[in-house]
């Protein structure tokens, strides 16, 4: 075990001990239960499959919504990056709309798309599409001019330049957008499930409040942390394997590694 692993493990132990002492001595343990009780609840809910059921419900919504959000976002982002006309028309509304968080869209989505799955997908697509569009367009606009000129000298047509120069040069930006969007997707789905759903981690948390089940509420919160970390790590792992050559510039040029 390396020194870093030891520090990570130790910091978690300290956190749990402090939480336990606070819970027992200062808070109402019925509202903020000690960690050991939450662990027992997680264990119990994992055993009977209830936890997996809710986690999968949320995850499935994110997979569907995120996929379409990325497809649409990259398409629109590329067209904004390549066409000045598209940029002139779409940039002003995007700059306005990007300030409205996916969470705030939930009531509107329910009014328009109903209480079923469609409204959840819409919230996730909304949360995904905006960072993906903005980052994709920014990536295309910041391709060095001389790289395009070099390709022109080498006989590349306009289509070749888009395919071999502009899109690959923009990839690091696009990937940053995709990663941000993944985080927003989870924010969106949890908010949507809290208001109108009978499955999912968001529903589980809201139901625990209504039924005064604090251990179950913390189980939901814990699972959000777990899913968020797992998907982000998976994302990074896949990018490292599949997209290595596009990320080279970023890894090679980032200098600050912490004091």
């Amino acid at each position, binding site marked *: 075990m390396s020194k870093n692993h030891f520090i990570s493990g130790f910091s978690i132990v300290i956190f749990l001990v402090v939480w336990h002492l606070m819970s027992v001595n200062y808070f109402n343990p019925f509202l903020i239960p000690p960690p050991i009780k939450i662990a027992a609840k997680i264990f119990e809910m994992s055993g009977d499959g209830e936890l997996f059921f809710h986690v999968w419900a949320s995850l499935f919504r994110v997979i569907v919504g995120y996929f379409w959000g990325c497809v649409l976002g990259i398409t629109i982002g590329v067209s904004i990056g390549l066409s000045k006309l598209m940029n002139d028309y779409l940039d002003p509304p995007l700059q306005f709309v990007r300030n409205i968080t996916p969470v705030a869209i939930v009531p509107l989505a329910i009014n328009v798309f109903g209480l079923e799955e469609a409204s959840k997908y819409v919230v996730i697509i909304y949360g995904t599409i905006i960072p993906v569009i903005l980052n994709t367009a920014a990536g295309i606009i910041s391709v060095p001019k001389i790289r395009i*000129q*070099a*390709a022109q*000298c080498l006989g590349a*047509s306009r289509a070749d330049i888009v395919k071999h*120069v502009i899109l690959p040069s923009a990839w690091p930006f696009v990937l940053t957008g995709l990663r941000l969007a993944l985080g927003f997707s989870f924010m969106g789905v949890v908010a949507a499930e809290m208001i109108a759903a009978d499955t999912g981690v968001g529903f589980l948390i809201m139901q625990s409040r209504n039924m005064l089940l604090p251990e179950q509420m913390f189980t939901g919160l814990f699972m959000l942390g777990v899913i968020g970390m797992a998907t982000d790590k998976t994302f990074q792992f896949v990018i490292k394997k599949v997209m290595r*050559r596009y990320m080279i510039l970023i890894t090679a040029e980032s200098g600050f590694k912490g004091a």
Partner: protein
Amino acid sequence: MSKLSLTNVTKNFSNSSGETTCVLKGIDLEVADGAFFTLLGASGCGKSTLLNIIAGFEEVSGGNVQIDGHAIEGPGTDRTVIFQDVSNALFPYMTVFENVEFGPKMSGQGKSDRKLTVEKYLKLVSLENDADKFPFELSGGMKQRVQIARALANDPDILLMDEPFGALDAITKKHLQIELRKIWKETGKTIFYITHDIIEALILSTRLAVMTAGPEAVLKEILDIDLAEPRSPANPEFAALYQKIEDSIDEEVEKRKFNE
């Protein structure tokens, strides 16, 4: 007939408030096939603007540029630019091999032919053992060799070089100058080279021109360089020519100071 000929090339730029500045005013120049032509001038005089016009990146405001007697229309594969900012000029997501392969790939060369072409030019610039590396793994001098190999693999008639060694350290620069001269002799390409380094110009060129300080820049004088080989700054003839050109450029810098 000249390889490259410029007739009365004029370039005006307009700023956002509508004022027009004349950067180049009536440049006439003939560059023979196989010549190593160098353009010298103080920074900001319009050298790069002229190179961009010959490359086809910028349009002339007046006059014309001809290659082999035909007026150019935009960028073409008969001319390739070697940029100073090599990190941005190379494709960072492609290996050295893939970078050099780009031109032949665009012209539709078959895979096995491309491999031979790339190997030939990587050998010419002594990078045959670095084919699978990515540009970020190379030093500045090596990157510049990749850019030269990439240009040559596309077999252009003219290389347009915009201060290609300006950002390199003195030792690397000296070695690359020697290699470039060797490559020029071996390939017989016409080279249009921009620099503000007089020694570099005298080591490399067969012909050079000094540009007046902008705006409204013209070619002040054109000299044929026929120095004894190997060319060395220690040679008295070299030193005398150096002094002459330096005085000529200094005069331009002084003139501009006075105008400001």
